[in-house]
């Protein structure tokens, strides 16, 4: 059944949601990967867009896609071959100093992907557990457990 509101033009939907998705992904996959995963997220959304029925819940819909992409991306990154000893001919573009120098990044990166995504929803975007469960397609209990475990691990690493 179609929701109470009608679907906006994709451009309007993109404008309304791009900043929060970018904010989420910057922490969930890191500033260097955020652009790639941002594109994967919105390309997936664009493919499915004409079939969307709940036009009044588009903000949750796009964050759910971004959550899946962030988790998949993390898993994919773990499977990538290790870099060889040969230095690249071109120096790799360095991210801003602020980003790499912060030990909190390393701590966040070390979390299992579902914990990491749950923690970002809770502590960066301030989402309720009920919503985190919906965004991640799990029970509220699992969402709470992921946030709890992830936060605990971060505290240990940063102590």
């Amino acid at each position, binding site marked *: 059944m179609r929701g109470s509101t009608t679907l906006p033009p994709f451009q309007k939907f993109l404008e309304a949601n*791009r900043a929060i998705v970018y904010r989420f992904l910057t922490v969930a996959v890191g500033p260097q990967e955020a652009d790639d995963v941002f*594109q994967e997220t919105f390309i997936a959304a664009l493919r499915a867009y004409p079939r969307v029925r709940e036009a009044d819940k588009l903000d949750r819909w796009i964050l759910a896609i971004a959550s899946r992409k962030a988790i998949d991306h993390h898993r994919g990154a773990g499977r990538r071959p290790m870099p060889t000893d040969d230095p690249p001919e071109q120096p790799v573009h360095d991210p801003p100093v602020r980003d790499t120098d912060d030990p909190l990044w390393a701590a966040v990166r070390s979390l299992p992907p579902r914990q990491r995504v749950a923690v970002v929803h809770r502590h960066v975007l301030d989402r309720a557990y009920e919503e985190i469960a919906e965004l991640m397609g799990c029970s509220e209990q699992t969402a709470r457990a992921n946030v709890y475990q992830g936060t605990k691990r971060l505290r240990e690493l940063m102590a």
Partner: protein
Amino acid sequence: MNANDLKRLAPGAEARPASRLAADSLTERAAAEGLVDVAVATMDSPIGELQVAVTSKGLVSIAFEDEHRDEVLERLTREVSPRVLEAAALTDEARRELEEYFRAERRRFDLRIDRRLIGEFAWNVLRATSRVGFGELATYGQIAQRIDRPKAARAVGRALGSNPIPIVIPCHRVIGAGGSLTGYAGGLPRKQTLLRLEGSIL
């Protein structure tokens, strides 16, 4: 560690410009993958900024800056596809022909037309209107006769008033029986500018 510390990793105000850049590259990729069903761009013209919309079938709408452009985009969303994106590159051909027209270097358009915003009767009217050439004029009654509906001058006027592709479908070349310019959906000053450009009026 305080849970709030995590917020310092997240971009604040800079998320908007950063996500704008990411959205721009997204549009390029979407266009390359054939996922843009309605490409929209704006362009300057002697009759104000124009919002041009193009689909794989052709030019589907042109809106003046003081029209309700959002309503045009919503109509495209409902009646063509919700995959409406600002993708200037896909509108290059349409914008180039319009620019040539406004520089008086083009007298007829070679663009394909997507008629999905045009109803059956209106299409008959607009097709007859398209045969009125650069520098020529026709009256509402003449158009009505040309579509074999000689008594339908008023309905012809309404169809012209709802022309979704002004300029390219030249509804500005249709005037009142007494030679008065009568009306124009984009306002009479625009009609005058277009007809002056074509040398039809002084």
